[in-house]
């Protein structure tokens, strides 16, 4: 009640003194932000219960991690939508029509409001309100289920992605997952850092990469037989397929799927050096060598999202740097500019899903940092500076990167939003490496 009065007071003040942000301190709790840079999204508090609380907590975190909104949180007993009124919201558990006080939410700086309401045994509803348009944008239902179940989290992540789609017009990344390697074993983790699961694989794992469908992944058993295998992400790992026919005396690594999943490119180390090959997965044939350099190595290929180009690492100028070629191997040229003898070696390129950027890591003064190159202008920007930072991998939204960082001591996966520079730590188990972020479809149940 006290909080409610505070809110009322600040709303009155806000209505009469635009721009006086000091008065807003009474209502914006939890996250400090610079007003006006991102649309405000109000997460309405409501009645308690283990299930509805869990949904609200996961949803809130997913929306926060999207970096698309300024979250406005309201703590306290009273629910802004409760009580008599003539709102248009869904009925609350008491059966009375809820009040949706659009004017109040707008006064709090919100362009959107999300309400999570319990409906007893049938589950909870998640409603996205367009505050300025005074309409319901999205309404989803989550049936009651075991909160500890991994599928529950997956369901809420998918709902969060729908909320992001409804509010921002672009799907979220909450239901995507990140593969990573630790001590030769392969794990996957939800995009919010929860639900770490070990994947059944053969031998020690290197170079994991998701298939674009998010249902399977490729990896290399290294330093075992150094063959590329593809396995299902949902069990059935008994006998993963070796996708490229074995050849004597070679080691295959760094596989990468074409965006439509029909082709695979990879690096093959042989008696003549390391070169990039492509293989037709759809027809299970047609191994083709794309680079032929007797005295240099070519590796770490990554397709552009239209499938027409491949960025890769080459030592043709001496030190490893980022090059590009057409997907058939023609037109090979330098991609990320560098000053010979000045710029450090560059490694591990990955083309962003929107095609606009290529992320990679580069040696900088005895350390390693993550860089992003704007493809159109070929201008390069350094994203990290604390600790060693390497092996960036794009989220499906093309604005978040997961990478390995030693900034907190041991190697962990961190995530950076390249728009705002905001970072967060994804893993806390140490000694992790080689992250690979899935497409949106991974784990989606909607």
């Amino acid at each position, binding site marked *: 009640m006290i909080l409610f009065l505070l809110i009322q007071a600040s709303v009155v003040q806000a209505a009469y003194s635009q721009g006086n942000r000091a008065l807003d301190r009474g209502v914006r709790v939890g996250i400090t932000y610079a007003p006006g840079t991102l649309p405000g999204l109000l997460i309405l508090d409501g009645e308690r219960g283990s299930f509805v609380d869990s949904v609200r907590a996961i949803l809130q975190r997913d929306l926060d991690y999207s970096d698309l909104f300024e979250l406005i949180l309201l703590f306290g007993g009273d629910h802004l939508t409760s009580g008599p009124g003539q709102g248009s919201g869904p009925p609350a558990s008491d059966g009375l029509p809820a009040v949706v006080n659009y004017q109040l939410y707008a006064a709090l700086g919100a362009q959107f409001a999300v309400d999570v309401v319990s409906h007893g045994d049938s589950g909870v509803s998640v409603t996205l309100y367009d505050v300025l348009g005074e309409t319901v944008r999205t309404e989803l239902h989550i049936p009651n289920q075991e909160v500890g179940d991994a599928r529950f989290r997956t369901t809420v992540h998918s709902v969060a992605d729908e909320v992001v789609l409804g509010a921002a017009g672009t799907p979220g990344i909450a239901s995507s997952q990140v593969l990573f390697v630790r001590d030769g074993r392969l794990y996957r983790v939800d995009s919010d850092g929860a639900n770490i699961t070990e994947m059944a694989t053969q031998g*020690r794992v*290197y*170079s994991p990469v998701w298939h674009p469908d998010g249902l399977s992944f490729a990896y290399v058993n*290294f*330093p075992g037989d150094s063959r590329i295998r593809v396995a299902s992400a949902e069990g059935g790992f008994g006998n993963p397929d070796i996708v490229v026919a074995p050849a004597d*005396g070679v*080691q295959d*690594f*760094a596989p990468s799927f074409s965006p439509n999943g029909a082709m695979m490119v990879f*690096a093959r*180390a*042989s*008696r*003549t*050096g*390391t070169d990039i090959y492509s293989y037709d997965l759809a027809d299970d044939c047609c191994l083709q060598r794309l680079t032929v350099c007797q005295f240099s*190595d070519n*590796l*770490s290929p990554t397709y552009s999202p239209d499938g027409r180009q491949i960025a890769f*690492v080459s*030592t043709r100028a001496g*030190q*490893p740097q980022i090059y590009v070629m057409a997907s058939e191997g023609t037109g090979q040229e330098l991609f990320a500019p560098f000053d010979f003898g000045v710029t450090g*070696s560059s*490694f*591990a390129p990955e083309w962003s899903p929107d095609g606009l950027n290529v992320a990679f*890591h580069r*040696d900088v003064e005895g350390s*390693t940092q993550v860089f992003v190159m704007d493809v159109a202008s070929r201008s390069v920007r350094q994203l990290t500076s604390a600790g060693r930072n*390497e*092996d960036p991998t794009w989220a499906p939204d093309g604005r978040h990167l997961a990478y390995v960082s030693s900034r907190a001591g041991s190697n962990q996966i961190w995530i950076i939003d390249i728009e705002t520079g905001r970072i967060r730590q994804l893993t806390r188990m140490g000694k992790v*490496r*080689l992250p690979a972020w899935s497409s949106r479809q991974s784990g989606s149940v909607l």
Partner: protein
Amino acid sequence: MRLTLPVTFGATVVLLASACGGGPEPIPLTDPDSLAAAEQVRRDSVASEQAVRDSVTRVQAEERVRVRRQQEARQDSIMRIQQETAAVTEMLSSRIHFDFDRSEIKPEYVSVLDAKIAILRANPMLMIEIVGHCDERGSDEYNIALGNRRAIGAKQYMVDRGVSAERISTRSMGESQPLVMGSNEEAWAQNRRDQFTITAGGDGLVQPGI
């Protein structure tokens, strides 16, 4: 009475003769003079038996010495071969190291590789594998390529000097198997290396001629 004695002597001689087993046929005793002859025969038989025994013992002793010497010689020989094989194997497995992000053979390791070439020439059945390793810097994937480059570089040096390429296989371990743990130049320098292992024909290796 006269009849009794000869029977007694005769019985004695027969007994002696049968005890010798394979001695001369007993002489039928018909008079007392034959007793002396029989006694002589008995003495000769015992002496002969002793001589045979002595001879067998001597031969057996000589045989034992001979066998022991043979065994000792064989063991010496085996040990010598083992020692030589171990020495050759050690020479063969000595590592070579590289500068950071380089795969060229450094001048101080040329003699190490030349010694391995001599061993391969002296042991035509010998096959080896060269495994390239990297320090932890650079990307995981790049280090597979760099380790491969280090292995094939050493192989090429040997092939250029007459060793058949079929006798040398190569492999990269990237940065996956550091020799020394640590994130400093000392550890990194140790970890940037080629290792040499025998894959076939590693028994009874001989030192190359000087």
